[in-house]
Structures are given as C-alpha cells and as structure tokens.
C-alpha cells in the first residue's frame, strides 16, 4: 500500500517531469500565458497520459517487443485525437488558445517516457497511479508558471483584473518571459531541495 502511495507522489515533486527531469517542456512554456489554458493543457495531458498508461499496461504482455514503439505511438495518438475532438466540441475557446499544442500532446516526451519506462513494466493499478501523479505534477507546474505570467504580463488572474493593464509588464506574456519564469522556478525548486537535504543530514 505504501508502495502505491509512493508511486502516486513521486511525480509531484521528487521526479517532477518538468522541474527535475526537464521533459515535455515545449507545451509547458507555450500555453502558460494565461491560467485558463495552462490548467486546460495540464488536464488534457493528464487524461491522455492516464488512458495511455492504463491501456498499455493492460496489454503489456501482448505487445511484441520489436514493434512496441509504433504501437505506443498509435495508442497515444488515438487518445490525443479524442481529446482534440472533445475540446473542439465542448470547449472551443480552450482548443483555440492551445492551438497547435493540443495535437502536439502526442509527441510530449513525458507520455512516451512514462509509457516506455513505467507502464510497459507494471500492473494497471500502479500505471494509473503513476499517470495521475505525473499528470498532476505537470499540471501544478503549468498552473504556477501561468499564474506568474498572467499576473505580471496582463495584470489578471483567470481573466479577473487584479491591477490595471498599464502597470503590467508585457515581457512576461511574450516568449522570453516564459523561459525566465521557468528558469527561476527550477532554481527555486533546486534550492528548496537543497535546504531540505541539509536539514535531513543534520
């Protein structure tokens, strides 16, 4: 039981896909100019990751080793298409703001990485928990980045005005701001881990 709990929480901090492993970066910087699309992207990605890990874990003993990568890609692409069609139908605003990055979930390294490293070797329960942990780890980082970028770049949070737009720093909404905020976030998370490590050794 404890083991399963560990799998679930692994992705949140210790092996956070974005902050620690630095994979799946592209979408995380591109869609975080506002919190709405940051959160939407995080959840869409979590859904695809969860379904793909579950399906692949169930069929892991039946997929021949030599062609496993193409099989994985087809399964991931199928779920990406499902998400794409669903968002198009029910949340067209979100699907517009995510743009080309919605279909690009299929080449998100996090999914391929987790499927290959985890789901193809573990039972469906563990794979599902791993997907939820990794997905939420991805989502919270996205929401954090987009919080700062939206607040500083446009002066709003979830579209609600916090301060006047004329005080906003446009730099944060543009491409350089994304790199900048993410760089500081990595420095912060490394710093916290270092502090926590020092505390333990004492």
């Amino acid at each position: 039981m404890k083991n399963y709990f560990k799998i679930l929480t692994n992705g949140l901090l210790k092996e956070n896909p974005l902050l620690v492993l630095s994979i799946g970066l592209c979408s995380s910087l591109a869609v975080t100019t506002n919190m709405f699309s940051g959160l939407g992207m995080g959840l869409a990605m979590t859904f695809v990751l969860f379904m793909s890990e579950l399906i692949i874990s169930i069929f892991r003993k039946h997929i021949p080793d030599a062609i496993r990568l193409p099989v994985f890609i087809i399964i991931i692409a199928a779920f990406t298409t499902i998400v794409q069609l669903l968002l198009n139908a029910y949340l067209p605003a979100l699907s517009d703001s995510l743009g080309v990055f919605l279909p690009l979930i299929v080449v998100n390294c996090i999914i391929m990485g987790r499927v290959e490293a985890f789901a193809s070797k573990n039972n469906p329960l563990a794979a599902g928990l791993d997907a939820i942990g990794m997905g939420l780890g991805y989502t919270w980082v996205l929401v954090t980045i987009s919080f700062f970028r939206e607040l500083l770049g446009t002066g709003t949070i979830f579209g609600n005005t916090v301060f006047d737009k004329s005080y906003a720093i446009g730099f944060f909404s543009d491409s350089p701001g994304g790199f900048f905020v993410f760089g500081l976030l990595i420095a912060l998370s490394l710093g916290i881990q270092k502090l926590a490590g020092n505390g333990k050794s004492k």
Partner: protein
Amino acid sequence: MSELLKIFIKAVLVDNVILVQYLALCPFMGMTSSTEKSFGMGIATSFVIVLATMVTYPIYHFILVPCKLEFLQTLIFILVIASLVQLVEFYLKKSAPALYSSMGVFLALITTNCAVLAVTFKCIANNFNYIQSIVYALGASGGFLLSMVIMSGVRERMRSSDVPAFLKGKAILFITASLLSLSFMGFKGLIK
C-alpha cells in the same frame, strides 16, 4: 517570389521555431552542450522537417481531404513521420555509413521532436500551397539550426564564466534562452 522570401524570413527570424514558438525545447536544452553535437542534430532535424512536409502535404490534400478524414490528421502524420525517420535511418545505414555514424544517434530522437509535427500542421493550417510549404519548412529548419548553434556557442563560453550559485545547472540555461529570445523579439517589426 517576394511572397516566398517573406515566408522564409518570417520562419527563420520572426517566428523562430525554438526561441519564439517554444517548439523543440528538448533538443535545445539537451543537445547543445557542444557546437559539433548541436550542428549534427540541427542538420538531421532540418532534413526530416523538410522531408516530412514534402510527404505529409500531399497525403493530407489528396487522401485525407477527399475521404473526409481530416480528424485523423494527428494519427496519420505521426505515423508517417515515424516511418519516414525509420526509412531514412535504414537508407543511411546502408548507403552512407559515415554520415549515419555521425547523424544516427539523433535520428531516433527526431520522431518525438515536436518541431517536425508542428511544421507539418502549420503548413496545413496556414493554407500554404506546395511550394510555400516547402519554403516554410526550409525556413523553420533554418531557424532551428540557427538557434541550436547560437545556444551551443553561448554554452561553450559559459563554461569559463562565473554563474551565480543559485542559478547553476539547468536554471541558467533557461535564463540564457530568455535573453536570446529577447534579442529575437527585435526582429518582430521586420515583416508586417
């Protein structure tokens, strides 16, 4: 002609794949530790981007559209790109072993490079014709190569510089990318 030149310049500088559009950040962060490596990766990826665009464009317009299967775009394109990369790999292995040994390691990674898939999508989304698509693909891959080489040059210089302790490691790479991206924003007014 000037139309094509505009598409090209726009793809290289104004809409730079990596620094402005945030595509292909994985190789940008992982493969730029030396100029040689980043150049190899850049050339290999450029080759695949152009090839993928040349192949996916007719597939979309002559197979998917007449059959009303546009919603399968993602699935078909990624399959086409994956098998294309595999074919290129086989071909190089047999006919140009020297090139293969310098490019081969990168090729397998290119399948999951988002720049390839994104360029093919954008050619469709922008309603380019065939020539325009190829020019756009050439421009995008030129921009990719350019920013890879710039980044690796900066990183080689950075080894001898004094980085603040809290930014050591990955964080400084993103700050560097941010500054590079800032300088690329200067091209924004270039094309209306």
